[in-house]
């Protein structure tokens, strides 16, 4: 187990190196450059070239890349040439916002998705089954920015039930950066509820795709396990139906579901960019979008690197959870 973990962590290095090269090149392939973004269209070619030279973007690409990587290995994620704010400081603020949104979405998606999947599998062929699976198809197919706008229109603009955007008032004392936890720690019920109200719409919107995927995966995994011989064995022991489902079927059906939960958590990062933009959520999504629009090369590179790191770590956790769920899997 220890050796396996070490090997996996070591593999992180080439993965992140690859990601860094690709992002570094791709951001420079997009038309436009930092100087044009700052000086707007009216600037002359000479002005643009001068500013780019001042910012160091006229040097050969390998030099720029090596210089950037040199800072990365020293733990310096660089700074925005635009705002002069360091990426590390910005991440300290924005990462918790995105974490809170993503965690809420994942909790909604996993709990609701697994429950719906179980119900659909147990009532296979019923209205409930077809209804759930149709909704799941709609959920997967729906563009989430559009769904976000529609929900804002319905629940915020028309009904005034929920706030349309932002995270709400920050707590007086920001410890974790997750407002829900900070309000809980401060025993502030009003602040906590207000945070939840702000989380509700973006959390649900971000949850739709993973929820649908998890529900479908749970249903099919359950159906597969329900058809296995050992489920009949369990029934013949004289177990109640709930016990058969909980103890024998679910535990065996969870492996593919966990895989999907992991993959969806990664996919959530891209969903977060859209959702945060629609809901003006001050997280990594809006941060990286602004950086892309401003051709803020360093910020984009570093944020994508952080995204890649999170994605790889989530996958590692998923792989490790297999060994815990299935005694037949051993890592050495």
């Amino acid at each position: 187990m220890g050796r396996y973990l070490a090997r996996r962590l070591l593999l992180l290095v080439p993965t992140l190196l690859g990601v860094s090269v690709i992002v570094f090149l791709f951001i420079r392939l997009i038309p436009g450059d930092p100087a044009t973004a700052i000086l707007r269209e009216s600037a002359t070619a000479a002005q643009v070239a001068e500013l780019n030279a001042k910012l160091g973007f006229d040097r050969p690409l390998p030099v720029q890349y090596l210089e950037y990587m040199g800072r990365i290995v020293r733990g310096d994620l660089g700074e925005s040439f635009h705002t002069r704010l360091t990426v590390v400081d910005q991440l300290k603020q924005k990462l918790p916002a995105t974490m809170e949104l993503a965690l809420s979405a994942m909790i909604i998606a996993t709990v609701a998705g697994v429950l719906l999947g179980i119900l659909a599998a147990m009532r296979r062929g019923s209205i409930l089954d077809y209804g759930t699976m149709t909704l799941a198809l709609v959920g997967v197919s729906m563009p989430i920015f559009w769904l976000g706008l529609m929900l804002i229109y319905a629940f915020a603009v028309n009904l005034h039930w929920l706030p349309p955007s932002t995270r709400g008032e920050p707590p007086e004392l920001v410890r974790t950066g997750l407002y829900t936890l900070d309000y809980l720690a401060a025993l502030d019920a009003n602040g906590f509820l207000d945070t939840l109200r702000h989380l509700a719409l973006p959390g649900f919107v971000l949850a739709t795709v993973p929820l649908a995927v998890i529900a479908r995966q749970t249903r099919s995994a359950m159906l597969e396990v329900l058809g296995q011989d050992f489920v009949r064995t369990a029934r013949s022991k004289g177990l109640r139906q709930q016990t058969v489902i909980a103890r024998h079927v679910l535990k065996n059906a969870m492996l593919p579901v966990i895989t999907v939960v992991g993959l969806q958590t990664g996919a959530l990062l891209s969903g977060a960019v859209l959702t945060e933009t629609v809901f003006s959520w001050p997280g990594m999504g809006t941060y990286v979008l602004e950086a892309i629009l401003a051709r803020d090369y360093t910020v984009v590179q570093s944020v994508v690197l952080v995204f890649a790191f999170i994605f790889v770590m989530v996958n590692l956790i998923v792989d490790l959870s297999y060994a815990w769920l299935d005694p037949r899997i051993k890592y050495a």
Partner: protein
Amino acid sequence: MALDVGTDHTSTATAGSGRNLLQVKGLKMHFPLTQGIIFQRQVGAVRAVDGVDFFVEKGETLGLVGESGCGKSTTGRAILQLYKPTAGEVLFDGVDLVKLGGEQMRKMRRRMQMIFQDPYASLNPRMTVGNIIGEPLEVHSLAKGKAKTERVQELLRVVGLNPYFTNRYPHEFSGGQRQRIGIARALAVEPDFIVADEPISALDVSIQAQVINLLEELQSKFKLTFLFIAHDLSVVRHISDRVAVMYLGKVVELADRAAIFERPLHPYSQALLSAVPIPDPAIETKRKRIILTGDVPSPVNPPSGCRFHTRCWKAQAVCSVTDPDFIEHEPRHWAACHFPG
């Protein structure tokens, strides 16, 4: 009324003696066939078991034989209510299991257990052997905690496994060992009746004999009653007191072992028995074999009259019209044939 089987006439005919532990009357198990993607409608039924009558006496082993797909396993599962039978009665110690509610049946399971065919698929891969065997003890409140652990270890010893295997998982065992785990699991609740559904057909030949001997040993030790489902006739001959022969969802002959193997009355039984090779080249070459022609008809649309008439060399006009009654032709020897012998 000759077309209607499973009537009172036939079921009383197979009532046997008063020592019956199990009596099956007119048992039918039909699986619906549906068509359509969203709105499914029933277009027919697979008549896997279609009117079966037999009884099992206390302490005996009844062998249930027949070719693949004739409904042997379905019969076993329908008896234990692992399927809800379409029709018929399953009297266990006088109680009709078909009429029992979920909770009553759940309690009844303590007295009847099943040994499954596939020792690989029938054990939950995520559970330790201790939990697999111990779970029924817990469900039926027979033992818990330390007593449960001790009982599990004792059961492992009984089936010839190391009692310290409790914390291992099924995948760490061989097929024969897994089948022993399945047997220990079935024995855990001290049942009276065990349905053994081809318990050895998935095992190596070298292991088969061991498991058969173990089952016999356990039977005499715990006074068990067995319904032994198999298609291997030599095994059935070895282990059974009486034998029931099934063809296409029906029992066509039921008799004591000696009677069935020496004087089979039903042409299907005769053909089936003639297929058993005899380990003596001199007899084997001279032996007359009855080769049946044609395939087993579909249980969705079984032949009219006697189901065997499409492949029977004795068939006459009456056979395709009238389904023969299941009649006691000799004492304790039933057969459903218009021209027995």
